[in-house]
């Protein structure tokens, strides 16, 4: 089956991102296809490469980046939500006149249409939030 995954909360503050990651891994291990992982609301905060979590705890951003790389996942960060919260790639930073960017590997900034498209293309859409 084709799954769309929606992550509505950022790392650590809520369990949503962890649950989404565990679910996504299980779906991939069972041989399902992940059409897209769409990060919305505070979920865009999973995509900053600047986190320095404690050594004795999981690194949520790295978990997603590595899962994304291993399985070629389309991990989309909503541009509107990202702009509100300060998640930028190099192009966005340049366009908005900001002095740096912070997006982590494997994440891509794109529009809300990607969420609707995931709903259309996937057989199942599962939302993880607060």
């Amino acid at each position, binding site marked *: 089956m084709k799954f769309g995954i929606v992550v509505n909360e950022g790392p650590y503050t809520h369990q949503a991102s962890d649950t989404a990651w*565990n679910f996504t891994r*299980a*779906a991939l291990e*069972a041989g*399902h296809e992940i059409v897209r992982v769409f990060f919305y609301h505070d979920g865009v905060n999973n995509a900053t490469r600047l986190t320095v979590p404690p050594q004795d705890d999981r690194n949520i951003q790295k978990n997603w980046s590595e899962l994304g790389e291993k399985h070629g996942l389309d991990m989309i960060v909503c541009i509107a939500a990202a702009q509100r919260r300060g998640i930028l790639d190099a192009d966005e930073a340049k366009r908005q006149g900001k002095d740096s960017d912070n997006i982590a590997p494997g994440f891509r900034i794109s529009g809300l249409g990607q969420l609707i498209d995931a709903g259309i293309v996937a057989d*199942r*859409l599962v*939302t993880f939030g*607060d």
Partner: protein
Amino acid sequence: MSTLHTVNKSPFDRPSLASCVAHCLPGDSILLIEDGVLGARNGSASAKMLVDAMANCKVYVLGPDATARGMAPDAMVTGIETIDYNGFVELAVNHKRTQSWL
């Protein structure tokens, strides 16, 4: 075709479990995840709500979340099935849509 309902918050935090149960139809499943597993404790004020729900729907608890919170299967309302993430995926596959009661 049926719905998989997920509830991720404790019934003592917000009324999402009550709202979920009130909107379930026969053949649906309810999966308690994250803090939502706390609603499954036997003897709690939410237990009756789940017993009533089970007349129409199967109720599941995500085992890893229960274990994280120190809740053993025998502490849960009778008839609730504990599953893991693989089981969560299977439930999502076997129901036409997933509705998250946040």
